């Protein structure tokens, strides 16, 4: 029997439904409600383990330093003797008697100037070295030697050159943190895909346009790696430099506390330095993640 043979009007090749299909919209029940349980759980999983470790360390430290002939103070003694430093970071009782937060800020200010200069000069030099084969051949060996010089070894020279402690400290920061910026920028520039260069050549971008519109964005992930290493190094260098140059920074505070045998103060200052260094690192990493979003994705 062929299909044409079907004459019955009720038989259809494509039966139409009695009722047209209804479009049922999905009612999205996305609850962006504040869920205290989930957030508390997440916080607990990130905060509880380090908290336990810290408590255990404090207990061990307390036990180890409790004997009367211990050379270092136990945590309890740090708490009682340096209480005003811990509880009042922003007190200000005169030129040499200020809270630790002020000292950290003064050190940070030096880091900001020194590191800021290092970032600008470092990216520019790195771009030159990455872009020009002759600049690389000439400058790279020099950079490789100079970058191994320890930060403090620069200090006597810079004191002699600047004849003042503050610019000397800033110079030490600069010279310490510039190398990773230069080297990483150069690698980033060397790794710019040939296609991007071809695009810029077809558009006849000039040197400045190429630098701003192609080179810096394309090398941004590398540049930020360099900046992150650089800011860590500069925070290392400033504390050491301030110990020697004096002034009101956090580094000099430690040296001063040592000279007047205030060991608990030193311990509190160390905690400040550590936390600040951590924050700086995370800050640069966060800025980098924000600026380079989309850059690495192909």
């Amino acid at each position, binding site marked *: 029997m062929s299909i044409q043979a079907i004459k019955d009007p009720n038989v259809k090749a494509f039966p139409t439904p009695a009722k047209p299909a209804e479009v049922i919209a999905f009612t999205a029940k996305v609850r962006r409600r504040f869920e205290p349980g989930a957030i508390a759980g997440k916080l607990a999983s990130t905060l509880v383990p380090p908290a336990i470790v810290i408590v255990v360390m404090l207990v061990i430290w307390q036990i180890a330093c409790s004997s009367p002939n211990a050379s270092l103070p136990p945590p309890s003694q740090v708490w009682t003797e340096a209480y005003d430093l811990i509880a009042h970071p922003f007190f200000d009782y005169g030129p040499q008697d200020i809270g630790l937060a002020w000292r950290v800020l003064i050190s940070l200010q030096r880091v900001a100037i020194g590191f800021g200069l290092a970032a600008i000069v470092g990216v520019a030099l790195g771009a030159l070295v990455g872009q020009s084969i002759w600049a690389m051949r000439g400058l790279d060996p020099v950079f490789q030697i100079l970058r191994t010089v320890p930060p403090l070894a620069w200090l006597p020279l810079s004191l002699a050159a600047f004849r003042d402690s503050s610019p000397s400290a800033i110079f030490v920061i600069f010279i310490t943190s510039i190398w990773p910026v230069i080297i990483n920028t150069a690698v980033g520039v060397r790794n710019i895909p040939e296609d991007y260069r071809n695009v810029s*050549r*077809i*558009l006849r971008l000039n040197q400045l346009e190429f630098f701003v*519109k192609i080179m810096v964005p394309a090398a941004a992930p590398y540049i930020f790696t360099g900046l992150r290493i650089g800011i860590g190094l500069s925070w290392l260098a400033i504390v050491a430099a301030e110990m020697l140059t004096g002034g009101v920074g956090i580094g000099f505070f430690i040296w001063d506390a040592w000279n007047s045998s205030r060991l608990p103060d030193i311990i509190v200052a160390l905690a400040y330095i550590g936390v600040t260094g951590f924050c700086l690192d995370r800050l640069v990493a966060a800025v980098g993640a924000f600026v380079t979003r989309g850059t690495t994705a192909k």
Partner: protein
Amino acid sequence: MTAYLKLDHIDKSFARGGQVSEVLKDIRLTIDKGEFVSIIGHSGCGKSTLLNLIAGLTKVTAGAVLLENKEVDSPGPERAVVFQNHSLLPWLTVYENINLAVSKVFGRTRSRAERHDWIMRNLDLVQMAHARDKRPAEISGGMKQRVGIARALAMEPKILLLDEPFGALDALTRAHLQDAVMDIHSRLGSTTIMITHDVDEAVLLSDRIVMMTNGPAATIGEVLAVPLARPRRRVELSSDRTFLRCREAVLKFLYERHRFVEAAE
């Protein structure tokens, strides 16, 4: 009548570590305004090198590229290239990618509003206006290539150079884009040179097909005119006699007379 684009006895060789390898030898070709020319050949025959020479991205060893009787030896927006891998800048949106080209080429001659209209017109041309604020990573390969074409067209080039533009795409997307390119070519009448290794694509799109011999020292083996009326429709053409004859001619050239020899690489 003088040719629009003239490749005048072009040789190209690369010197690497004291060894000179000859890639192209005595390339002679003239292309008229509005013509669509495909260059086909086996991989390694120097097709892409030839395109780069026309684009000015590499310099000729001997001979000259003449555009409207003027020698061109450096890249410029009047010879816009659509690269095989799109090469959109990943940190810019679709709109910004085209804007980079438009503001560089027309920054002085057109107002901001005119430039905006021009960008949107080109995005419309490749049907990508809906994705103007997306970044290249967020759109598909075919869409990226559309944007690449829009960027090249937005430079208002005298010659559009397509470097295996559909090579990295799947067959369906490729067919869509071929139709889009044919449509654009018929609307704008842009002089186009396309590198390809796909015989059907070459016959479907081109007015003439330039067939390259194998390297080293590759040259133009044969030039085949494709006398098919436009607009061309791929479904009708698949049984068209002229289409099949052209296709056969190219296949014969590539697989009988100039077989790809692996050792020549």
